[in-house]
C-alpha cells in the first residue's frame, strides 16, 4: 500500500483527480460512457464507496447494512423537496444530517461487537429499516410505490413554481438534469474526495488504521478504539446519506429497495474491486461496476451475434449462447463471477494490481540489482 504521499504529492493527486472528474464527459466519450446520466451515477456511487471505505478500508469493520443510510438519505431528500422546495442544497444538507443521526444510533449499538457479529448486526438493522419502510412507515415512505414529489406538496420556498412535466430539482435556475445534474454531483464528489484524503492523512485516520491493525495494542497504548470506530461509522453513514440524496436530485423518487441488503453488498463489491483502504480504488470500483452494468445489461442476442460475426456459424452460435448468460438480464452473474475472481486472486483490488504492474515496470527499468534494497533486514 503506497499511501504515504507528501503534502505536495497529495495536492498533485487532488488536482489530477479534480481535473479527471470534471473532464469525464470528454475522456469517457470514446468508450461510450460520455453521457450525463451514467456520469452522474459514477459520481454518486463513487461518493458512496468513498464513504464506505472510510469505515471498511481504514478500520476493517465490514458493514453489511450501509444501504440503509443510502435509503435514509433518499427519503430525507425527497421530504426536503416536498416541504422546502426543489432546491438541492437543503436536501443534501438535511440528508447528511439525518443519515448521520441514524448512523450514530445504529453504530453505537453495532460497534459493541466486532468481526462477524458486527456484520450481522449492521445487516439486521438495515433489514429492519427496509422492512419497516415497506410496512408501518408507509406514511413516511409511501411503501412499495415509493416516495415522490407531488404538485400539491407545500414546498414552502417555491410553491408557486409549476412544472409542465415531472418536478425536477433546480439550482440557480438550472434543472438538475443532464450536465448541470452531473456537475452538481461531480463537485460534491470532489469535495468528498478531498475530505477522505484529509482524513486518511490525519492523526484520526492513522488511529483508524491502528484499529484495523491491532486493537489490543491500541487499548494498551491509552486509546479507546470505540469512539474512533463510531466516528468513522458516522462519517461513512453521512457519505451514504449524501449519495442517497443525490440519487434523488434528477429523479425525485425514493424507494425502499434502495435499502435492501443486495445494495449493501454492491457497495462492498465496489470498494473491494477498486481496492479497500486506497483513496482512488473505491471510486474506480464504483465507476467500473456502474459502467459495466450499463454496457452489459444493454447487450442482447442481436448485439452479441454481431460481435461474434467473424466466427464460423456453429462457433458463433455457441459463443452467443454462452456469452448471453452473462449479459442483459444475466449481468448479475458477471458481477458475481467478478466478485469471486477479485477476492480469490486480487484481494487488494485494482489498485493492488496497478501497484504490482508498476513495481514490475520499475524493476525492469532499474535493473534487478537494486530491487532487494528494501527487503527486511533479519
Amino acid at each position, binding site marked *: 500500500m503506497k499511501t504515504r504521499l507528501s503534502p505536495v504529492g497529495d495536492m498533485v493527486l487532488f488536482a489530477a483527480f479534480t481535473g479527471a472528474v470534471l473532464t469525464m464527459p470528454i475522456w469517457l466519450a470514446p468508450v461510450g460512457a460520455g453521457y450525463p446520466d451514467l456520469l452522474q451515477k459514477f459520481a454518486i456511487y463513487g461518493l458512496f464507496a468513498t464513504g464506505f471505505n472510510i469505515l471498511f478500508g481504514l478500520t*476493517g469493520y*465490514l458493514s453489511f447494512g450501509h444501504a440503509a443510510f443510502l435509503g435514509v438519505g433518499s427519503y430525507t431528500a425527497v421530504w426536503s423537496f416536498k416541504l422546502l422546495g426543489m432546491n438541492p442544497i437543503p436536501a443534501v444538507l438535511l440528508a447528511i444530517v439525518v443519515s448521520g443521526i441514524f448512523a450514530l444510533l445504529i453504530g453505537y*449499538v453495532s460497534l*459493541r*461487537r*466486532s*468481526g*462477524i*457479529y458486527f*456484520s*450481522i*448486526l449492521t*445487516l*439486521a*438493522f438495515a*433489514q*429492519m429499516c427496509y*422492512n*419497516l419502510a*415497506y*410496512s*408501518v*412507515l408507509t406514511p413516511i415512505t409511501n411503501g412499495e410505490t415509493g416516495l415522490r414529489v407531488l404538485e400539491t406538496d407545500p414546498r414552502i420556498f417555491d410553491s408557486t413554481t409549476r412544472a409542465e412535466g415531472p418536478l425536477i430539482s433546480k439550482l440557480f435556475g438550472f434543472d438538475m438534469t443532464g450536465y448541470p445534474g452531473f456537475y452538481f454531483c461531480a463537485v460534491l464528489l470532489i469535495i468528498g474526495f478531498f475530505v477522505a484524503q484529509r482524513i486518511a492523512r490525519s492523526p484520526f485516520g492513522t488511529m483508524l488504521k491502528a484499529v484495523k491493525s491491532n486493537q489490543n495494542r491500541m487499548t494498551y497504548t491509552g486509546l479507546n478504539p470505540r469512539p474512533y470506530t463510531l466516528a468513522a461509522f458516522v462519517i461513512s453513514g453521512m457519505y451514504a446519506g449524501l449519495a442517497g440524496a443525490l440519487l434523488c436530485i434528477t429523479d425525485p423518487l425514493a424507494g425502499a429497495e434502495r435499502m435492501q*441488503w*443486495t445494495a449493501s*453488498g454492491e457497495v*462492498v*463489491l465496489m470498494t*473491494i474491486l477498486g481496492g479497500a483502504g486506497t483513496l482512488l480504488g473505491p471510486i474506480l470500483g464504483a465507476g467500473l461496476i456502474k459502467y459495466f452494468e450499463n454496457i452489459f445489461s444493454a447487450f442482447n442476442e442481436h448485439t452479441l451475434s454481431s460481435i461474434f460475426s467473424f466466427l464460423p456459424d456453429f462457433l458463433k452460435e455457441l459463443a452467443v449462447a454462452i456469452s448471453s*448468460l452473462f449479459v442483459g*438480464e*444475466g449481468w*448479475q*452473474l458477471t*458481477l*458475481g*463471477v*467478478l*466478485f*469471486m475472481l477479485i*477476492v*480469490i486472486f486480487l*484481494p487488494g483490488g485494482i489498485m493492488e494490481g496497478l501497484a504490482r504492474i508498476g513495481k514490475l515496470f520499475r524493476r525492469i527499468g532499474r535493473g534487478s540489482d537494486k530491487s532487494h534494497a528494501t527487503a527486511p533486514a533479519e
Partner: protein
Amino acid sequence: MDEILLQFLNGLDKGGAYALIALGLTLIFGTLGVVNFAHGALFMLGAFCAVSFNLLLSLQKVTVDPTKTTAWGTPLEVRTPYVEAYLGDFGHWILNYSVPVSILLAIPVMLLIGFAMERGLIKHFYTRPHADQILVTFGLAIVLQEIVKSIYGANPIPQVAPDVVSGAADIGAMLGLGAGVIVYPWWRMVYLLFSLVVIAIVFAFLQFTTFGMVVRAGMADRETVGLLGINIERRFTIVFAIAAVVAGLAGVMYTPILPPDYHMGMDFLVLSFVVVVVGGMGSLTGAVSAGFLLGILQSFASMNEVKAIFPGIDQIIIYLVAVVILLVRPRGLMGRKGVMEN
C-alpha cells in the same frame, strides 16, 4: 388459547427450516472456521432439485388418438408423462410423490455440490480473514442463484405435496376445541417431523460415531485435534458436504410450502445467520433451538392482536431479537467462549 396454539404450530415449520439451515451453518463455522454466505444458495439448490425432478418426471409423450377428434375435427392429442406411460400406476404414484421422492436425487446431488464447493473454493479460504470468506461465498451465492435464474426463470415454480397430505388437519377438532378452530396443513406437519428427524440423525451421527466425535472435538478445540495427527482436511470436506445435504433437504421439502424461486436462498440465509448468532456461534443445540424459537416468535408477531399493539413488529421481530440478544449475551444463547472471536 387456540389462537396461540395455532400460531405456535405455524411457527414450527418455518422454525424447522431455519433450524436445518442454521445447523449446517454453525457446523461449518465450528469445524472449518468458515463463514459461509452461500449456505442459503444450497437451500435454494435443494429446492430446485425437487423442481428438476418434477420437471423430468413430467416430460410428456404425445400420442395421437385416432378414435377421437377435437372440436375442430383434428385428431386428439393425448399427453401422458413418460413415467406414467411406461410404469403405469407406479409412474403415477412417483409423479404424485415427486417432492418426497426427489430427496433420493437431492442427497447425491447435494453431496457432490458440497464436495465440489469445499474442494474447489472453500478450502483455499481457511486461513484467509473472515471478511474474505464472507465476500467470496457471497459472490458464489450470487453466481449460483443467477445460474438457476437463467435455467428456470425468475418466477416461482409451485410444487404440490402428495395427495394424501395435501389437505389440512383440523387439529382443533382432534383436541376437542371445536371444528375449524385450528386448521393446520398436513404438509407443514410433515415438514416439522421431517426436520426433527434430520436434526436427530445429524445429532446421532455426531454423538455416536467416531467421526462425529472427532468433529465435536474439533469444534471444541481445533488446534488440539490437529495435533493428534487426525486428518482434518478430509473431515472438513465431509462435514461441509453433510451441511450441504442438510440445507438441500430442507429446501426440497419446503417447496410445497413456498414455491421456490432463485432468490429464496438469500432470504433464508439472512434469517438463518441471525438464527446462528442468536443461538450462539458454534453451538449446534443453540442453532436448533434458536431456529424454532425465532420461527415461533415470528409467527406470534404476525398475529393481528400483537400487530395492533406494535405495528410492524412482524417485519422486524427476528432482527430485534438478534440485536437484543447480541447486546445482552454477546455470545448468543448457547455460544461458547473463543468461537469466532479474534
